[in-house]
């Protein structure tokens, strides 16, 4: 099933050259949430590039993931403003609560955690984004409520 989806994406880039590599990787990740091993091989075949080159480019950039993310993907901003306002504590609170490290997914598959350089909402630091939904001016105490809210949504099957 996944293979056909990748085919669809590749067909949107006919006669593509190397400059289409990053946009294709981005589209694949957008569709599946991550870049799988099969996807890397298939993209390489389409662009006439060795899979190693494709993998080399994909691993260079922070954006690409190689394991499926959770239902709710938590991005913790670790920009300067957020750091000064205590984002290290926020990150630690999330790690303790979910018992995962950045880059990992919880065993129930509900949450995954990622550290990002800057979301660009520095005026409202510290900030996290959950599936693109922002939570600003956070404190470590507020984290539990937010996580619980999303967990409830997940059990009610309301995840987008």
């Amino acid at each position, binding site marked *: 099933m996944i293979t056909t989806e990748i085919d669809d994406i590749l067909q949107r880039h006919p006669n593509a050259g190397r400059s289409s590599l990053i946009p294709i990787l981005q589209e694949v990740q957008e569709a599946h949430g991550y870049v799988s091993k099969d996807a890397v091989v298939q993209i390489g075949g389409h662009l006439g590039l060795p899979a190693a080159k494709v993998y080399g480019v994909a691993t260079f950039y922070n954006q690409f993931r190689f394991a499926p993310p959770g239902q709710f993907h938590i991005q913790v901003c670790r920009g300067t403003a957020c750091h000064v306002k205590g984002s290290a504590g926020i990150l630690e609170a999330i790690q303790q609560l979910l018992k995962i490290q950045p880059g990992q997914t919880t065993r129930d598959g509900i949450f995954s955690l990622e550290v*990002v350089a800057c979301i*660009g909402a520095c005026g409202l630091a510290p900030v996290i984004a959950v599936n693109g939904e922002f939570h600003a001016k956070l404190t470590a105490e507020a984290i539990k409520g937010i996580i619980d809210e999303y967990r409830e949504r997940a059990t009610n099957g309301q995840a987008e």
Partner: protein
Amino acid sequence: MAKLSDKCCQACWHDWDNPCPDLVECMTAGPVCHDSEPCKTKRQAAIAELRREVVSEPVLFVGTGTCGLAAGAGKTLATAKRWLEEKGIAAKVVEVGCIGLCAVEPILDIQMPGKARVSFQEVSADSVGELLESVMVKGDLPEEKVLGQHRPVEGSALEPWQGAAWLDEHPFFAPQTRWVLANCGIIDPTQIEEYIARGGYAAMAKTIRSSTSAELCDEIEASGLRGRGGGGFVTGKKWKFALNTPAEQKYLICNADEGDPGAFMDRAVIEGDPHRLLEGMAIAAYGIGASKAYVYIRAEYPLAIKRLHEAIAQAHKYGLLGHNILDSGFNLEILVKMGAGAFVCGEETALINSIEGKRGMPRPRPPFPAVSGLFGKPTIINNVETLANLPGIALKGAKWFSSVGTAGSKGTKVFAVSGKINLTGLVEVAMGTKLRQIIEDIGQGIPNGRKFKAVQVGGPSGGCVPAQHLDIEIDYESLKTIGAMMGSGGLVVMDDQTCMVDVAKFFMNFVQRESCGKCIPCREGTRRMLEILQAITRGRGRETGSDALDRFKGVMYLQRLAEVIRDTSLCGLGQTAPNPVLSTLRWFRDEYEAHIYERRCPAGVCTELLTYRIDAEKCRGCTLCAKKCPSGAILGAPKSPHYIIPDKCIGCGTCVEVCRFDAVIKE
């Protein structure tokens, strides 16, 4: 609503599908192709409506930029719409970008027919109903919510509200010179006509009609505009390299890969006023003779990407981009490329590699991109803010632009003010403004009565400016003299609870992670610097073997290592990577010494260096801290005061958090 795209009468033969070179002027100041008083009146009426000098029904403006959304503007917007529906009140709801005062978001403006537009602060979903009731039904302004009213333009029929302060006299806005941000938070970014009605695209039309590329380059060079992305190279001079390199294809790239943590002005401009960027790009492309342009934008900015796509599509529809723009023979295609999250891609040659689909690694220069860049063709890379400055210069002239600023730095600069400061947000001030004014007047000082310690300028490539240098007049050169740099303009304010060693460690961690790995000084050197900083903030409890010796050895080499990295790295990222350490070493050496010799952190941030003790008077012996202590360092019998064994304590601070009697003291 009247539209600029409507023909005024049959005598007008041109429209956006069949443009003439004077089209923009004809639509806004015209008609110029024929003399007709009714047509002129009709045009002016349309312009007034688009500028919202005349509104027939109430208009609500909700600031829904990324920062607004983070503060809850999405919920405010939904609640306001529901309220209007329930009450059966006809009103227009407009989503605008960010006006720049992030601290009091969500911001909602209301303009009642015949009245001046008023901005309200902190309009949460809970309070929006009450506010709308008060303003739209009862007709009075709740004082505590009013941010200020917008001053109507001269000759406008809009009546000001009694007793409401002017927005332009608000302490945050009064000292600013808003050129680049002029429309942000004011106009609807999805409507090209609102931008045109406010003088948009007039500069582009004028330039491609009446100047040659060489004349334009001269004008931009004469204005003294310098790159706003970090380097500060004179823009006009850079363009000339590309203009004078013969090639059948040249490229313009807009660098919107705002990687500096702590800077968000590019995002705000694209979200709030995307056509200003497109117009600036068109002018730049004309100046260097490029017919293809790229916007390299961060994938972390989904809203900005959406706005940009919308704006490009609209500009195409109005014939302001694409083939034969305004019948001038000038062509321009703008493509959007999403960055994939690599800080080093802010470097020109790395960015080019990334667009070409390679790993974003810099290459040695020369050849400079202006001579051989993207796909081997002459390429000019300008930052968003630089490009957004161009329409003003092209329309009003180099003299107008250079009348503001210092001897070496002209115009204005946008700063993203954040951190420990009361009013956070985007601030655009004239070059030469004092840092103190930005922090104390515009930003309203430090919250909670704390003391100012330093302001970090320019992100990971910049440095910290201590209190004694706050009276410096900001420009490219002055900042360099005190070990900082303009960078992209992030200002992160720090108070006495911020540890400067920790800040240096934070930046080194960032830089070593983002180092592309191509050259050794940067790849290995930044890693070693981080390790040295980690060693001096590590508690003695975790030191084994010769760790203490290595710690001292590292400190001795820190400065020398920093200088080697600065002198020998390949690209700007590496050359500036040691700056946060060098500048904190220069101004806050005492803090480093406290960490190294006294093994304590004066700001109380480096947890491993803190010592804890239990106040026997306050401790009730509830045993909670002893149970939670991960290293078993707390002893004591139930119902009698506990005590901490210093040698076992790892300084995690758990006991402080769990104690219900505030008996644990952190020192």
